[in-house]
């Protein structure tokens, strides 16, 4: 991008960060669901998405880095939990999934409140 950046866009860095966090948590939701679906696949090792760390690194790089941030699942080599070499603990995955679901809801609550403030400012009603 060339030229000076506008002092403030409609979607400020905080809103952008919230949205990126939601997309990271959504990917994590899919990855954790995948672990549960593969709880009986021989030799399968679970994966997880550390989107907090990725986002936190991007935050140090400014708005452009947040805009460009992308998340990737990482395989956790936890070893065998079952005789067939599978490393999935269904209980742990279910707990992580529930926790991640609550986190998405919390992020959406905040993102939603900020959007409704914007709507009010634009005269569109809350």
């Amino acid at each position, binding site marked *: 991008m060339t030229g000076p950046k506008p002092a403030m866009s409609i979607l400020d860095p905080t809103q952008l960060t919230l949205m990126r966090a939601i997309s990271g948590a959504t990917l994590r939701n*899919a990855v954790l669901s995948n672990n*549960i679906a593969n709880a009986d696949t021989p030799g399968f090792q679970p994966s997880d998405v550390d989107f907090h760390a990725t986002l936190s690194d991007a935050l140090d790089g400014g708005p452009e880095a947040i805009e460009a941030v992308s998340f990737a699942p990482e395989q956790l080599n936890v070893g065998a939990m079952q005789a067939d070499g599978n490393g999935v603990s269904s209980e742990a995955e279910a707990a992580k999934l529930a926790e991640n679901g609550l986190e998405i809801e919390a992020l959406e609550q905040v993102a939603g409140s900020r959007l409704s403030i914007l709507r009010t400012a634009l005269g569109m009603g809350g």
Partner: protein
Amino acid sequence: MALFDALNISASGLTAQRLRMDVTSANLANAQSTRTPEGGPYRRQDVVLQESSGDGSFAGALSGALGGGGGGEPAGVEVAAIVPDTTPLRRVYEPGSPDADAQGYVEMPNVNPVEEMTDLIDASRSYQANVTAMQTTKQVFAKTIELL
């Protein structure tokens, strides 16, 4: 990464576990079958699961075409094969049976009902785990849609 990937992944888990239950039921139902279309007594069937690569799916192909990597993204589970169990058949002394050999022994299927019952419970619990994952995802997505 589509919004409904997680639901499709859980659905693949449901399909796989349902098939395991079907195959286990077939094993139990045929625990005494001494004749099959292929000849010989019934052999216990085993389901082999593998992690799905997602290459064959529409979403996987689209993501690859858009340069989204395609690889590494979770795509659920799939049934690789249903293979016969090659452990030895049970030999039961039953001279009156039409399938008895010269010594009066009948070859019975290598099905152990206790093993099948534990497999059945295992598959049904895994099915429930996938249902729970699906419910969590659905609840979160419903909240997302409320935002719009």
